[in-house]
Structure formats: structure tokens, C-alpha cells
């Protein structure tokens, strides 16, 4: 007999009633196929929802709902739980009435229907999308209890669409003087963002699908921009127009928001790239370990500058580190799932993860970021996250560096 047999059962114990008494589902007939033509999660999964952070924004139509990272697996975010960020509410737009106009410094301004676009050479790529304000509430002190609120403006999908460069080429854009592209949405805010031409010609996509199906209305149905590695606000939803120009546009969300207040009182404008970052998602803040013993510690790593090459994990608040397993595929500007073994001995512990990307950049500590950017920032907080494990097994959000 193995060592486990040592865990003796009370004398006379026959076994678990969940085994000895066969459950109904082993003794009856279940539901037919296509009972749900479009399926839904189990009723036991209802706790995992996208949720707002009370007090974060004033109105729910210009707000954020956070993805429940504490309960997600792998790298794909289920579309139903993709985080939301709207500036003037979301719409379910009739795709047959939707148009994309490409104009500005082009030989021929053109209008494309969805029919047109979906006939063009298409591509599919997996990428993360992270709001520039993700983890923004934690620039100063610890503020939120769980990874849903600290890191949940993060999702990852397989996107399908046409390369933006295909459209720019089709309209004969000005290769010499066209230095920037404006993307504009069709919602009330008609969100506008400037994309530098080198990005536009690299991996930017005009996408209609996420995770195998059309975009969800909340995520821009029927058309959105996908700007890999760049903060989510640039991934213009309900995309209606692309303009080629020679200067950036300085739009509301490039001049009044998504700017970083530096210690000298200047603001950095056009801070766009989501730098290398990681977070342990389970176990994480607001969770309680069931008991002592073995745990799989898991989390996500990503970089707006390319692939993740390594993730290290510490269980002693950053004093000692071990390299985690990365689940393949590790793709550029895409989430990477990491896992590592841990035996909790019942004592206090602090869990941290630290990602490294293919440029060699090492995810920083919050004090390193503050040394450069000060304490009054909001966006682009890619600091190492610390989760403190109490002896009770309850885990809480702390800052340790």
C-alpha cells in the first residue's frame, strides 16, 4: 500500500456517499443535443462574471467591467467574459448597414461594406488586449482586493480580419508623407486614436471576429481595430473610418486621458505600448487556500514588445525565485500561461511573478516604476504583483519590493 493509505478513515467508514450512492445522472436520461442551440456555462459557474469596480467611474456607459481572471484558464478569454470599456455605451450594429471608409492621404478614398471586407485576404492571430489603465488603481497604494479588479482589464482572443496594410494598399496610400493613421468608431463617442504608420503597416488588423465567431457587440461588432501590443483604447471599436495623415491627431484620449503625469509636471502623450507584465491569477487576492499541501500556482504573462521568454515565481516575497513552466504556444503580443508547483506548509508566504520578454526586459517592481514616473500616474502600471498568504490561508493584496 502507498503512503496515502496512512490517511486512515474512521473505523467502519465505508466510503464517500457521492460514490456509494450513485448520482441521478448515472441512473437516468439526460438532455438532448441542441437543447441549447447556443450553449451557456454550467449553472455552477455563475460566480464568474464581468464586474464593475464601485466608485471607479461615474457612469456605467463610460466605464469598465473587469474580466474574472481569478477563475480563468489558459490564454483564451471566453467572449462572454471579455472585459469591457466603453466611452459612450455599446451598440448592436446591423452589419449590413455598417461601412468602413478609408480616406485622407490616399490615391482613392474608398467605402467598404462588411461584405467587401470579409472577401479580402484574411488572417487570424492571437493577441492580448489590455487597457492602458489596467492596474492603475494600484499606482499609489493597494486599493482593490482581487485580481479581477487589479488586472482584469485584460483579455486575449484569436482575432480574424484583414491587415490594415491591405486596405491602405488598396486605396494607394501616400507612402512618403502618410506618417499616421486615424481610426474612428461609429458609436456616440466616435472614439478616435492615432496609430503611427510603422505600427499600421506591421501587425495591425481590421477585425470582425474574435475566438471563432463574430465580435461581440460589447467588443465592437461588426468591426474593430486590433493593434497588437498597444493599449486597448487604440483598438477602436465599431470602426467606421481610417484616415491617413502626416501629423498625429491629439484626440481627447490622447491629450486629456491616457497621458502620464510625470514628477516634473509634464504629461507624457501617446504612451501606448503595454510593457512586459505578469500576474499570478490562482491563488490570488481574496481567495482562501483550502488547506496545507500541494498547489499549482498559475498566472499570465504578456508583453507589447513581443514574446514572453521566461517567468519566475517567488513564494517568499521576492527573495528567492524559481522559473515557471510556460504553456505553449508562446506567441508574440499574446498572453502566455505559466504554472509552477508549490507546497504550502501553512506558514505565511508572499507570491510574486516576474516576466521577461524577448527584448530582455524584466518586469519591474512598483518602486522602480515610481522612481521614474512618480506616484501620480494612472496608466501603464506593469509592476510585479504581490499576494500575501496568511496562516488562515486567506490571500490579500500587498505591495512588497
Amino acid at each position, binding site marked *: 500500500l502507498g503512503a496515502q493509505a496512512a490517511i486512515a478513515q474512521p473505523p467502519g467508514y465505508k466510503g464517500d456517499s457521492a460514490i456509494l450512492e450513485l448520482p441521478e445522472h448515472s441512473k437516468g436520461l439526460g438532455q438532448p443535443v441542441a437543447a441549447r442551440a447556443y450553449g451557456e456555462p454550467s449553472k455552477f459557474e455563475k460566480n464568474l462574471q464581468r464586474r464593475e469596480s464601485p466608485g471607479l467611474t461615474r457612469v456605467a456607459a463610460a466605464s469598465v467591467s473587469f474580466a474574472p481572471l481569478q477563475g480563468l484558464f489558459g490564454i483564451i478569454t471566453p467572449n462572454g467574459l471579455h472585459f469591457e470599456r466603453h466611452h459612450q455605451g455599446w451598440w448592436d450594429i446591423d452589419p449590413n448597414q455598417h461601412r468602413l471608409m478609408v480616406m485622407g492621404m490616399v490615391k482613392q478614398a474608398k467605402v467598404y461594406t462588411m461584405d467587401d471586407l470579409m472577401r479580402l485576404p484574411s488572417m487570424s492571430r492571437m493577441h492580448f488586449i489590455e487597457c492602458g489603465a489596467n492596474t492603475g488603481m494600484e499606482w499609489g497604494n493597494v486599493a482593490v482586493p482581487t485580481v479581477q479588479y487589479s488586472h482584469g482589464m485584460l483579455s486575449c482572443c484569436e482575432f480574424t480580419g484583414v491587415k490594415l496594410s491591405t486596405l491602405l494598399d488598396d486605396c494607394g496610400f501616400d507612402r512618403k508623407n502618410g506618417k499616421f493613421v486615424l481610426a474612428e468608431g461609429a458609436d456616440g463617442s466616435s472614439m478616435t486614436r492615432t496609430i503611427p504608420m510603422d505600427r499600421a503597416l506591421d501587425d495591425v488588423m481590421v477585425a470582425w471576429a474574435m475566438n471563432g465567431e463574430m465580435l461581440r457587440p460589447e467588443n465592437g461588432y461588426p468591426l474593430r481595430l486590433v493593434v497588437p501590443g498597444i493599449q486597448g483604447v487604440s483598438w477602436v471599436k465599431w470602426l467606421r473610418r481610417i484616415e491617413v495623415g502626416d501629423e498625429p491627431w491629439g484626440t481627447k484620449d490622447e491629450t486629456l486621458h491616457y497621458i502620464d503625469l510625470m514628477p516634473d509636471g509634464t504629461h507624457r502623450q501617446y504612451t501606448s505600448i503595454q510593457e512586459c507584465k505578469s500576474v499570478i491569477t490562482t491563488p490570488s487576492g481574496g481567495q482562501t487556500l483550502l488547506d496545507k499541501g500541494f498547489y499549482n500556482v498559475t498566472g499570465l504573462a504578456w508583453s507589447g514588445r513581443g514574446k514572453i521568454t521566461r517567468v519566475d515565481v517567488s513564494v517568499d516575497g521576492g527573495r528567492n*525565485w524559481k522559473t515557471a513552466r510556460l504553456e505553449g504556444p508562446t506567441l508574440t503580443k499574446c498572453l502566455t500561461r505559466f504554472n509552477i508547483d508549490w507546497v504550502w506548509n501553512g506558514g505565511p508566504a508572499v507570491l510574486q511573478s516576474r516576466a521577461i520578454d524577448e527584448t530582455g526586459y524584466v518586469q519591474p517592481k512598483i518602486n522602480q516604476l515610481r522612481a521614474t514616473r512618480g506616484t501620480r500616474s494612472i496608466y501603464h502600471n506593469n509592476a510585479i504583483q504581490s499576494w500575501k498568504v496568511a496562516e488562515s490561508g486567506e490571500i490579500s493584496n500587498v505591495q512588497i519590493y
Partner: protein
Amino acid sequence: QTTYPGVGRPATPAEITAWDIDVRPDFKGLPAGSGSVAKGQVVWESKCASCHGTFGESNEWFAPIVGGTTAEDVKAGRVKTLVTGDVSRTTLMKLSTISTLWDYINRAMPWTAPKSLTTEEVYAVVAYILNLGDILPSDFVLSNENIAQVQEKLPNRKGMRRDHGLWNVKGPGDVRNVACMKDCPVSSGPASSLPEHARDAHGNLAEQNRPVGGVRGAETTGKPAL
């Protein structure tokens, strides 16, 4: 011969006009027209003040639009409280390009009826906001002719920088951490911990976690941390 026969068609001039509404910092895209501060006050009080406050001070729907700038700032082109203060930032404290205000109001405001303002109304309400911020006098008429001069009065017109590594994908990161593996230096104890009142500020965490797996959500309703 196009590469993609049958796909797309030329945009008509009227179509381009209907959608090409963006206004750039160099005023490309700005339609000719004008609007007075007085007219702006009418627009503001009937269409904007309910959300943003009579003086643009409201914190109810969004951060205040007006406030926090001084005559000093207007001269310097830099808002001083941004250097020293830890206060919440109003729109006018941040605004570096007047086109931004014009473009945004024109495309997105009023919030529940975006794109309903006439060109004159947009000029006027922009003028009125700047008047509320003591940047323009009460008798001012803002127009495409004088908007460039008004730009030169914005309190924070010199407050923006682009010399950083977060715009270029090949740019350098701000900080260079090193991946120490063993006996690394760390601060002693947490520099910050979740305040007790924040533990349940997001509701009962037990209901936000799966009721199965190696972990459970902590019960945070009416219970202190264990």
C-alpha cells in the same frame, strides 16, 4: 486593374464630408465659423451644465472641466499645480491643444445627443469653457481665424512630451530591472496592504470565485480577515 476586383468602391465627396469630422492640432479639418462666449453660455446652460455643472465644476458625471489654472499658467503655458500638487486634474489643467476640445465636443457631446451641435454652437461652447477658466474674456468670439491665437493662451500648452519609449515598439523601457534569483534584496514587510475597509468594498468575494477548486473566495460580508 485593382488587386481585389469587386471589393469596395470609391467614396463620394458627400460621403467624405459626412464623416471626415476630425480636427487636428494644426487645425486641419476645422470648419470655418465662429461662436461667441455669450452664445456659448446659452448652449452650456441648456445642454451641458446639467452634467458638468454650471461652472464646469461638477464631479458628478466626470472630473471637472474647469478649474485649477491661473493667469500665471496662461502666461507660462505650464500649469503649476501639476508640478507640485496632488490634486485631481481638471480638463483645462491638462488641455494642451484647443483642437482637442473642439473636436471632442463636436463629435461626442452632449453625451446623450452627440453630433447634434451646430458648428457655431461648438465654437461658442468652447469659447465659453475657456471663459469659465478665465482664459477668454466674456465678449470674445472664437473663430477659425483667431483660434490659433487662443491656442497660445492655453495654460498647459507646453505641458506635453513625446520623448519616451512607450510610443515606439522598439523603444527602450523606462526601467531596467534585473532578474535576481537568489537572496535578492527586498524591503522589509509590505509597503502597502489592502485597507480593511477595502476588503468588502467590491462585495462578497466568496460570490466572485468558483465554489470548487483548490481555493475559495473569502467571505467578506461582515467578517474581518482571518
